[in-house]
């Protein structure tokens, strides 16, 4: 068994007995002069989570908010390394299949329950329980996770079915925030409404469709090692407001009714940049960029030539830059630039090339033309169905523009793209049934390049929650990625993940378009100290403080 001493300087400074002193020192002392401790911060975001317990389902809005009231076992840093959080230290077995976490002591959940090894075990059990309806967590864990056990009161051991080198990175996400066993036992519905963790804030109220109100956890002692300060948050209250409408959300920031907004609409970026009171903080998510996944089970797209033709014809860079007004960069690789082992040579593998596209399509036998000028083969038109969620606010307008641009570009080479607006229920059905679509726009934010396995492995097909939209079943890819998960050698990982990127690109299973970005805008004259943690781009409000009373 290899030991990995992991007590970084930062962690050591506030570790052990010193920790209490750090927390007790009082927040105000560490704040710059003229600023204010306490007060309410209004944070406006676009999408509302369906459940505040991030174990359930597992969509981005859940992690963003869960970070405020849940702590994870470890915290990831920008360079990909992890530092202690609820786990003070950990040991990984030689074969990479057993992890022992030594937990921080003296931590309590905000409902008074003690945080201990049993609690962590209960969390893993809840995640694996089908009743929790976890989606994201299961995709990360189920191919590897075997069991969790409490070795002692403060040591928890996790058994894996096979080695999983990205585990620590994975666990750093708020998707794996640790919740109070007592609260989880209330049942999913209640836990969705008001999950209980050890985090810096406590959920007070969720007014659906409007906001979540959180109050400071006065006894907060478990900030991660990379926090800007230890102890309770400066802010007394956080109002996490949902403002779906882009104009309204940005307007709220301009008028000071919100101190910070998440996802500055791309169309407002020029205004935001020009405004001296608005500071923007962009974070490029690691993981699979927003892509048009091509369903390889479809009659036309099963042919790699057709897929390549579609990619060549799409002018992916052009449609992104037009739709996102040049604010979002184009990304043509299968993982985005922020992801470890990103191979920049694959940044634009299929430049816009109408001739090549036409040649490929001719080659694939789509040589006929129907009366509208679309290509046909054996009397069938080359039609690709692209369903998207048309419920209000669900598909960002820029993405809708991308679909339209894509449609128009493909038309030039005789490929008909049919945009199918659908409501959420229909989209769920589509997700489950590969015969109902040819193309879907998807992304997958993840701190690890292993995300490729989640998105494109056969095992994902087995887990069957519709994440492998391309319906890829490729032995070569699976083997490469499993090997990468099993090795702990960075160089080896690098080589394997690069190979995977090449394989994905060569097969053109999807058309990568742009990396997902967290675009946080704050009123720099009102608030400071909000930072974005690097695993999932979660905003951290624990260190934020108001410069003066909000309006």
């Amino acid at each position: 068994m290899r030991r990995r001493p992991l007590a970084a300087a930062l962690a050591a400074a506030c570790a052990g007995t010193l920790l209490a002193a750090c927390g007790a020192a009082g927040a105000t002392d560490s704040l710059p002069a003229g600023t204010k401790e306490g007060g309410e911060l209004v944070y406006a975001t676009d999408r509302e989570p369906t459940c505040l317990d991030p174990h359930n389902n597992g969509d981005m809005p859940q992690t963003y908010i869960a970070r405020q009231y849940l702590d994870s076992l470890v915290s990831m840093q920008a360079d990909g390394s992890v530092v202690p959080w609820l786990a003070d230290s950990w040991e990984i077995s030689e074969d990479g299949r057993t992890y022992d976490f030594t937990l921080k002591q003296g931590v309590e959940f905000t409902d008074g329950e003690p945080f201990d090894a049993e609690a962590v075990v209960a969390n893993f059990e809840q995640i694996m329980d089908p009743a929790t309806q976890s989606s994201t967590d299961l995709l990360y864990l189920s191919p590897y996770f075997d069991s969790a056990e409490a070795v002692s009161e403060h040591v928890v051991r996790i058994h894996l079915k096979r080695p999983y080198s990205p585990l620590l990175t994975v666990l750093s996400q708020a998707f794996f925030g640790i919740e109070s066993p007592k609260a989880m036992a209330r049942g999913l519905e209640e836990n969705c409404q008001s999950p209980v963790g050890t985090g810096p804030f406590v959920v007070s109220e969720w007014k659906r469709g409007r906001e979540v109100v959180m109050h400071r956890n006065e006894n907060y002692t478990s900030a991660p090692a990379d926090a800007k300060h230890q102890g309770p948050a400066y802010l007394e209250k956080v109002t996490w407001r949902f403002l779906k409408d882009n104009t309204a959300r940005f307007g709220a920031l301009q008028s000071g009714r919100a101190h910070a907004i998440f996802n500055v609409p791309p169309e407002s970026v020029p205004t935001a940049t020009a405004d001296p009171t608005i500071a923007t903080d962009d974070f490029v998510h690691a993981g699979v960029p927003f892509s048009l996944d091509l369903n390889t089970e479809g009659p036309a797209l099963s042919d790699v030539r057709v897929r390549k033709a579609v990619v060549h014809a799409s002018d992916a860079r052009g449609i992104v830059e037009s739709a996102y007004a040049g604010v979002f960069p184009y990304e043509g690789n299968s993982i985005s630039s922020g992801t470890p082992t990103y191979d920049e040579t694959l940044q634009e593998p299929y430049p816009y090339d109408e001739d090549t596209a036409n040649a490929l399509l001719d080659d694939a036998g789509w040589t006929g033309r129907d009366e509208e000028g679309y290509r046909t083969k054996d009397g069938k038109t080359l039609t690709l169905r692209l369903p998207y969620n048309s419920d209000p606010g669900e598909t960002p307008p820029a993405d809708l523009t991308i679909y339209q641009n894509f449609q128009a570009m493909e038309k030039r080479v005789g490929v008909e793209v049919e945009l199918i607006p659908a409501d959420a229920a229909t989209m769920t059905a589509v997700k489950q049934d590969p015969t109902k679509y040819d193309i879907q726009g998807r992304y997958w934010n993840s701190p690890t390049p292993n995300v490729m396995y989640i998105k494109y492995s056969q095992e994902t097909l087995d887990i069957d929650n519709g994440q492998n939209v391309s319906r890829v079943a490729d032995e070569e890819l699976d083997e490469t990625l499993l090997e990468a998960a099993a090795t702990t050698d960075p160089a080896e990982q690098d080589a394997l993940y690069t190979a995977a990127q090449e394989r994905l690109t060569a097969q053109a299973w999807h058309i990568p378009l742009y990396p997902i970005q967290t675009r946080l805008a704050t009123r720099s004259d009102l608030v400071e100290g909000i930072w974005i943690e690097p695993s999932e781009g979660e905003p951290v409000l624990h260190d934020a403080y108001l410069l003066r009373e909000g309006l």
Partner: protein
Amino acid sequence: MTVHTRDETASASAVGGAAPATAPGVVPPLDPTAGSDPAPGSDPAPGSGAGTQRPGSRWRALARRAASQLGSAVLLLWAVATIVFFLQHMVPGDPALAILGGASSNPPPETVQAVREQYGFDQPLLVQYAAFLGGLVQLDLGESYTMKESVVTVIGEQIVPTLQLTASALVLAWVIALTLTLVSAGRSGLAGRIGSSIEVVFAALPHFWLGVVLLVVFAVVLQWLPVVDGGPLGLILPAATLGIPLGGFLAQVTRDEFDAALRQPFVLSARSRGATLHDVRWRHVLRHAALPGIALSGWGLGSLISGAVVVEVIFSRQGIGQVLVSAVTSQDLPLVVGVTFVVALVYVVANLLTDLAYVAVDPRLRASIGRAS
């Protein structure tokens, strides 16, 4: 929906034509079948000049009227609830999924089945309908599937901003209508022409466009007003968006009536007694002119609620409109029913208030309640 706007006026003049010519162009909203009785000949009813009324019978008549109004209100609510119930059941998708966290959730089949049984979704539709009606009779609107809160609570919270919005829009509309009418109606030349042009343009402005333009100009470019809610300042733009078109419409109606009233002999008669034009406009004509507008205000309030859906979306306001949109898309039947109920109730109450306001302005109706109906 503003679609009805024109129909109202048109039907008003159509019915007005057949109704006894007590007030040209004005429809008393009390009896929808007025004028349908083919009274033979030109003999007016004897005793049309009859004098005194017995107060007792008038009260009895009022009570009867109130009772019958209540009865039809209940009938109306039942009909509305029934329509919503069956319509909502036509929406594809499983309400159990809505309860379990929306269409994107992925609950195991057992859980779904359990919820189906718990809520009785496995029962035949008519049995569900009976249970639904049973709940309604006990004034129990149930719990929202998605909000996990009682429908009454949700609506109680959300109706306040909507009512604030619609009420201020209605007030604004009246201010616009009366100002335009008093400044320009019945005046020849440029003032009248400009006034009536403004009204027509105002009335033709769709909410969705006006709202966006106001938002951009006043909130984004000039930054005079906040973009999103937060106190009375945030109410200005949404209320203006809703109120301006209605104001234009009311002004048109009021102006037409104002002009008509100005041509009435009683105006000449008043002037022959020495009244100034100003006197005549304020003391005689304005009241007449306001009548059809008041009659339409109840309807106007109803249309404002529909318009509020659009305005609430533009200005990201809280309110019943937003709730309705999300309730329908997420198949939250109890909430849809609740919102529909509230809107129908607003319609009923608004019409009742209109009746009262109308009677307050036009005392002829007081007499007619006692005597004719």
